């Protein structure tokens, strides 16, 4: 899923400082799972924004009226259409979705100012309650078959394809004792699986044209279009 976290309140307050009435929209997909932009987070941000504006401090324009909604998916037109009436009556839409949802909302309502309330962080998974970790860099050329299902592009700080580097020590990465060395993990897993020969092969330079570096990416299935 896409993992996001909420922007600091001060930043959101700045983004809505000229608005008197806003529509705060959550999303029931990924950001609900990572507790950043679901129904509950929408309710909480609504309360805290109203509280902040009720204080009448800090370069804000008086009380704020907040209308809330949480849609099934912000990255799909069909779920945005029912918001049209509410959108028409506000100064600004604050999206509590990932960057995809924010952009989709902005494109769907081209005459409305749409701002993000979240920082979209990464494609990851829940590791335990309250902890999410990155797992995929969306590079478009999956290498996991070489590494026993542990992604070095994502989990190695240098995205090495021929690791580990000289900074791997006692299982952790050179940048922090809190971060495991992905190549140590790969090594251990391949050893367990009896496939250490995989790590002895030289992996050639990667084709990054299928990653973000190749420009706007599209995925097409003509058989279903």
């Amino acid at each position, binding site marked *: 899923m896409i993992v996001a976290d909420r922007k600091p309140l001060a930043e959101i307050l700045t983004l809505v400082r000229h608005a008197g009435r806003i529509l705060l929209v959550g999303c029931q997909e990924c950001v609900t799972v990572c507790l950043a932009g679901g129904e509950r987070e929408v309710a909480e941000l609504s309360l805290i924004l109203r509280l902040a504006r009720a204080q009448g401090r800090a370069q804000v324009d008086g009380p704020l009226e907040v209308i809330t909604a949480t849609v099934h998916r912000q990255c799909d037109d069909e779920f945005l259409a029912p918001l049209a009436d509410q959108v028409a009556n506000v100064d600004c839409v604050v999206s509590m979705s990932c960057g995809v949802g924010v952009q989709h909302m902005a494109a769907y309502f081209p005459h409305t100012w749409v701002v993000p309330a979240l920082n979209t962080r990464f494609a990851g998974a829940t590791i335990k309650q309250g902890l999410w970790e990155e797992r995929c860099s969306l590079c478009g050329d999956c290498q996991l078959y070489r590494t026993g299902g542990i992604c070095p592009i994502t989990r190695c700080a240098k995205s090495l394809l*021929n690791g580990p580097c000289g900074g791997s020590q006692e299982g952790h990465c050179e940048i922090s004792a809190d971060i495991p*060395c992905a190549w140590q993990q790969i*090594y251990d897993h391949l050893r367990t699986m009896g496939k250490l020969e995989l790590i002895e092969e030289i992996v050639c330079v990667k084709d990054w044209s299928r990653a973000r570096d190749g420009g706007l990416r599209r995925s097409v299935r003509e058989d279903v279009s």
Partner: protein
Amino acid sequence: MNRLQGVLAAGGFAVTAEIGPPKGADPTRLRRYAERLRECTDAQNLTDNQTAIVRLSSLAACVHVLAAGGEPVLQVTCRDRNRIAIQSDLLGAYSLGVQNVLCLSGDHQSFGNHPTAKNVYDIDSIQLLGMVRRMRDEGCFLCGEEMKAPPRFFIGAAANPFADPLEFRAKRLAKKIAAGADFIQTQAVFDLERFRTWMAMVRDIGLDEQTAILAGVIPPKSARALRFMAQVPGMAVPKELLRRMESASDQQEEGKRICSELMEELRSVPGVRGLHIMAVMWEDVVPELVERAGLLPRPWQAASFSGRETG
């Protein structure tokens, strides 16, 4: 043939040293170091924004070293440049007379003075080695396109016997050699026991005969400096060395003594073909260390040496 390659090709024992380029645009000190080191070392490594701290570029520093009569080793990391920039810099460096290159991954930018920078890592150090070798041996760019006047670099790589997993370290060296490493400069050795273990693994698979391994040393300038090094990821400093430095009345002298002892021990490790002295912020000490080790004069200073003339 250049000095470093010539010494190694003749079966000699090589000595190289590291020079850290300045954090500014004044090359005076850099040139002074180059002049001082050119007579006592076969080649001088110019670091590439080491520990991700911005310094005068390795390429420009190489040119200063050449002007001072030295023999530079261009250090190239994969952190700041993609395959286009690296190949371009390699052509530029060779055109200016730089003949040695050391291929590195590079320290992560979070260590340096621009921790919010975006890193590149388009390619890694092993892929970089392969790229430089392909330019030299096949006369083509990474994309396969042919080039005129390919750069004929003497290609080096780093190896860290103290990083984990130990049992993979010799195999990773094998990958570097297969990719193109003509010579190796290791991480600084303080833990001789671990170094010997690694070298035994290296010899077991015959790697010492496929490349020239230069063991790295750092003369510790103070107990504080040594304590700092002990905390650097990928460095191993035995506790007794720390104690020795701390209890010394003259720490600089003790540092030199420790380094000289390590150099002596390392020379006797089978498969070690040279030493690489990284006197960080203490480049002035290198001539004395080489002299104490009895490694002067350098082989290329003899009239009969077949390599390039001095200067």
